[in-house]
């Protein structure tokens, strides 16, 4: 395959909270039109990495480029890139005082004030439907939804502008298996049809198998591998062995082989 363009480049990133060093000399490349799965134990700094890339967290040191623009040391303003990115936060982060459809319309209204009410509602309805919500949730408040439904609304909001890069922090956590599988299909189709790049923090081994083109493993304050799933599996790092070689990892891999053969 020809060398692809990198849409995200992280070099020598260092993040530190007080004395606790979370990232040290971390390098990461995300290629255009790929779904990158980011895995790592709890507390290894996956969310912090995501926040640094989108400019919500000021790192201690290093360089971050997104879509050719320098995020850190800060050159681009937040507004310049946030039309091109959509973020699904780990706990949804819906605006609690707005209805579900207003939540989805919020980024549309901010970046495209020319959109009429009717069109905005239609767009919101379609995004909600794409993320697997049925008609009638649009008028509800976030506090009236279940945890999984909130996640889907957050996904609909992240996709509202058809961003070029979608950042997802554990998108399938809290979804039922059917919903999670539909979600995988959704992001694959987004990637293929809209040319999206997806940065997905996940612990869902099925998602990694089915959706992700490459997997980045975070351990020891660095990205220790960033390669296709098969290559990652072959790596002999003990944590990786335990992660993919455990009963769940084997089950997911087996299921994937079976479905591939059928």
């Amino acid at each position, binding site marked *: 395959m020809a060398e692809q363009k990198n849409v995200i480049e992280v070099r020598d990133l260092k993040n530190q909270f007080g004395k606790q060093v979370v990232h040290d000399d971390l390098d990461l490349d995300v290629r255009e039109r790929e779904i990158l799965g980011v895995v790592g134990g709890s507390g290894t700094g996956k969310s912090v990495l995501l926040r640094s890339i989108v400019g919500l967290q000021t790192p201690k040191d290093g360089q971050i480029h997104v879509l050719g623009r320098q995020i850190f040391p800060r050159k681009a303003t937040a507004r310049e890139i946030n*039309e091109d990115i959509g973020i699904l936060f780990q706990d949804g982060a819906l605006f*609690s*005082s707005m*209805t*579900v*459809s*207003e939540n989805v319309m919020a980024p*549309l209204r901010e970046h*495209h004030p*020319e*959109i*009429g*009410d*009717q*069109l905005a*509602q*239609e*767009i*919101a*309805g*379609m*995004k*909600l*439907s*794409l993320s697997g919500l049925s*008609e*009638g*949730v*649009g*008028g509800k*408040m*976030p*506090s*009236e939804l279940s945890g999984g439904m909130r996640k889907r609304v957050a996904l609909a909001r992240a*996709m509202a*502008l*058809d961003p070029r890069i979608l950042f997802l922090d554990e998108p399938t956590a809290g979804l039922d298996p059917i919903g999670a599988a539909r979600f995988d299909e959704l992001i694959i*189709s987004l990637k*293929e*049809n*809209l040319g999206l790049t997806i940065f997905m923090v996940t612990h869902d081994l099925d998602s990694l198998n089915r959706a992700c083109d490459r997997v980045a493993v975070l351990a020891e304050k660095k990205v220790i591998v960033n390669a296709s799933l098969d290559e990652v599996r072959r790596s002999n790092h003990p944590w990786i062995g335990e992660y993919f070689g455990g009963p769940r990892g084997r089950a997911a891999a087996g299921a994937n082989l079976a479905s591939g053969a059928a």
Partner: protein
Amino acid sequence: MTSASFEVVKGDHPRLSAHGPWTIADGVAALDSKIRAFAQTTLDKKLTIDMAGVEALDTVGAMILQRTMQACGGRTQEGQPLAGFVNVTDHHETLLEQAAGNLISCEVPQRPNSALIVLERVGRATDDIAEEVLNILSFVGQVVSRIGENIRHPGHFRPTAVVHHMETAGLNALFIVGLMSFLIGAVVAFMGATVLAEFGAEVFAVELVGISVLREFGVLLTAILIAGRSGSAFTAAIGSMKLREEIDAMRAMGIDPMDALVVPRVIALLLAVPCLAFIASVLGLMGGGVVCALALDIPPALFMARTQDIIVIDNFVVGMVKAPVFGFAIAVIGCYQGMMVEASAEELGRRTTISVVQSLFLVILADALFAILFMELDY
């Protein structure tokens, strides 16, 4: 850079040719009203949409095209989402199919007109006041019964929490309460003396300061400051715990939030407000004394002597008796409003405001009632 556009051929075989990038970034939203108007005139004729000129398509563009197609002619049957479209590339095909399955508009409920809203709000507010008074009374009952329970079973009591709240709500407010009180004492002395000087009775400024500071200003100022400072903090803290389901988590663990959150705060203010009021009164007197000495030629010794002779202990008692009542009212309202927060962050802000307003109102109401009571008792 080109932007999205389209041209139509009307008639019995209408045809819509789309050109340019049909994406939201390239202005497809601006076409919406035009294309809607076109759809109105073309209802139920078999429309053909020519996609040959489309350079780029995103979900919004696909949705607009698919919506138009479905409105005009309803050619799209189950399983044939692309009927009526010609010259579609592979990428666009999937997007159009996706859009066909997900055409849902979520209606935003219409808002009634503003005059009605005003009337409705007045009605609701009146109704809410009655309900709120009952709720607060019932909350007071619960707090008192929990305090009683804590006394009977001291195991539930949380001294560490009480001390913590006494520190944040009491000790940390000491400086500002003292300073305000000192300044008010000084102002009363100065203003009083200016008026009294016309009658040659400047020296009565001492009585003026003594009585007003000990009876009213010391404790009232303290209560007002604490209501603004700690009442609101209580509401915000408990309210955000409620929003993040921390209170439900406590209940599920068998921890009574009344014991853990409310009783310690109420007891802390019951104890802290009298202490603050005492210090405020002393500093108020000092403020008066300093002004008397510096500006009015009443030496400190005379000020002290007159204060001791004429200002009877009754004034001090009257002031201090009110302090725990005010503290109780502020803490109860702060906690009650916090426990009432539900659903949204905006609600938290609203409840915090209400908490301050209500506790100020209650403090001043209680003060007026005390004034009448002491008048009847001839204190």
